């Protein structure tokens, strides 16, 4: 990667921000930091960085946390991409921020090289799925093999291939490993993952909606 990716780091814990900054490699540069919802919105709007590393739980604003920041910057989503960073494994937190428009989700115990990699991937327009997010997707869309999407435009079901990719990611495979396991290119894996992300964001699938409603996400 020749280009340096500029990143705005949003987290309410100073110690954590310092840790993240120290662990990111040379290809990622932190150009701004914010620690509340309001400050984050202001900073993202003025800097308009290619990537925002966003904590899911943030003080301030209307109490909506990271998802609120994304919703306030919806018009920037084409150029500024959000990567959600969370210490929580709670599915409701994750799905809320993804449905708000984040391009990916990683847990805070991710190591430096992986995080830098995830930032670059999000910057280039791809989606980043952790094994756990893949697990959520399979849970929400149903994992039974018979229930598969036929056409590409079907939002409520995963295609057989997408499900296969999600299962491999949930099993701890990297994109590269998924690609070689399924005999497809990494680019194809990324396409599948992006398609799943889109479905996760747009689907009105009954279970997903009910599931989210039960957790007061909608």
């Amino acid at each position, binding site marked *: 990667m020749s280009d340096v990716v500029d990143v705005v780091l949003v987290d309410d814990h100073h110690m954590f921000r310092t840790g993240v900054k120290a662990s990111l490699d040379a290809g990622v540069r932190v150009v701004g930091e914010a620690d509340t919802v309001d400050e984050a919105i202001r900073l993202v709007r003025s800097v308009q960085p290619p990537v925002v590393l966003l904590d899911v739980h943030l003080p301030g604003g209307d109490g909506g946390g990271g998802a609120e920041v994304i919703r306030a910057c919806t018009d920037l989503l084409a150029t500024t991409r959000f990567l959600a960073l969370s210490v929580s494994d*709670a599915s409701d*937190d994750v799905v809320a921020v993804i449905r708000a428009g984040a391009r990916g989700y990683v847990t805070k115990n991710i190591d430096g090289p992986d995080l830098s990699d995830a930032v670059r991937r999000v910057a280039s327009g791809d989606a980043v799925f952790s094994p756990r997010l893949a697990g959520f997707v399979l849970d929400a869309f149903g994992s039974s093999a018979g229930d598969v999407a036929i056409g590409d435009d079907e939002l409520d079901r995963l295609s057989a291939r997408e499900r296969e990719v999600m299962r491999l990611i949930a*099993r701890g495979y990297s994109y590269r490993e998924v690609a070689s396991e399924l005999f497809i290119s990494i680019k194809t894996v990324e396409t599948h993952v992006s398609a799943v992300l889109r479905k996760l964001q747009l689907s009105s699938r009954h279970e997903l909606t009910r599931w989210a409603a039960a957790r007061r996400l909608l």
Partner: protein
Amino acid sequence: MRGRWFGGVALGLAAHLDLPVGLVRLAFIVLTPVAAVGPVLYVFWWLAIPAGDPAAAARDVRPSALTRLARRQNVIEPGRRIPVTDIAIGAVLVIAAVLLVAVRAGADVEADWLLPALIVLSGLWLAWSQLDAAQRDRLRDRAGGRTPVSVLRVAGGILLAGVGVLLFIGLGSGEGVEPATLAQSIIAAVVMLGGVALVLTPWWLRLVRELGDERAARARESERADIAAHLHDSVLQTLALIRLRADDSAEVARMARAQERELREWLYDDRPAPGTSVAASLREIVAEVEDSRSGPSGDPVAVEAVVVGDRVPDVDTEALLQATREALVNAVVHGLPPVSLYLEVGASQVEVFVRDHGEGFDLEEVASDRFGVRESIIGRVRRRGGTATVTCKPGRGTEVHLLVPVSSGPDEGEER
């Protein structure tokens, strides 16, 4: 809500439908001559719809994740303490009723005055004694709330009940029982019952509603106390231990990991009852392995566990989980981190993948006397009609795939 005339139904409806209040009130008035639809609807909605601003209520609803540990503040508006005017109106109504009855009774006004007055008074006392002191205070605290309305309703109900009782007694003690008298008595009884119902129904409805609210509040309180106690017992202790053993990095990492997992479970999981969830059993196994086993270099190994679906454990899943444990121990002790674990509960089968980044082992080369892999993993699963495969690819680690067929659907656990 501010600006209400009676029960605030029109105001609430206007807020809900986003229409001017005047229009809604006009609609109610217009509907009144049409078989009294207006008043009937009004009373029905009054009873059925909880008071409050729908927009404010919607604002109060926040993502559960954010309210998890946050106590919600009960904002009580300061307002009038005692609705003097309404009590006065009620009193006037009661006195008017008493006088009317007295006039009806004619000459016996003086003699019969004591009994109806007593009945009315005891009715009042009865209605008020349903509220304990705390609730009465709370009702008074609700600014512009239901207090005046309640008083009016109580007064109206008692008025009716009193009229009914008096009609009953006054006529019964007269001459013989005629058909007209009987009919009148029946009407009187119905009126009385209606009055009593009018008194009791709103109270009863409100009591039920408040009971629910109070239960929820108490549940929240005990949850908070639970968490506070837990933080004290476990997190603080672990922090103290970590400080004591700060030089032993492997031990510190292990303690931190164990504590993190425990805290996570407390904060984010639904904590299913023991023996009802395969996912929970699996997490226990992961915890046990993480705590008790170390990797080849002596460092603790974190296991990334992902679970999809859940079901009630049975013998089949029990065997599968035991095999999973062995596979996991194998991966942690002999393999290389990161170790991933994936469990998928399907309609007809349960699958487990355990993966590490070590060089792995060849199944055929495992000596038959090494009981570990052959018996404890593969044997267990095969005896349940399942399959176990080990895949090793150079540079891509080792993956153990276990599959056990199960009988019933995976939703059993949720329907309990």
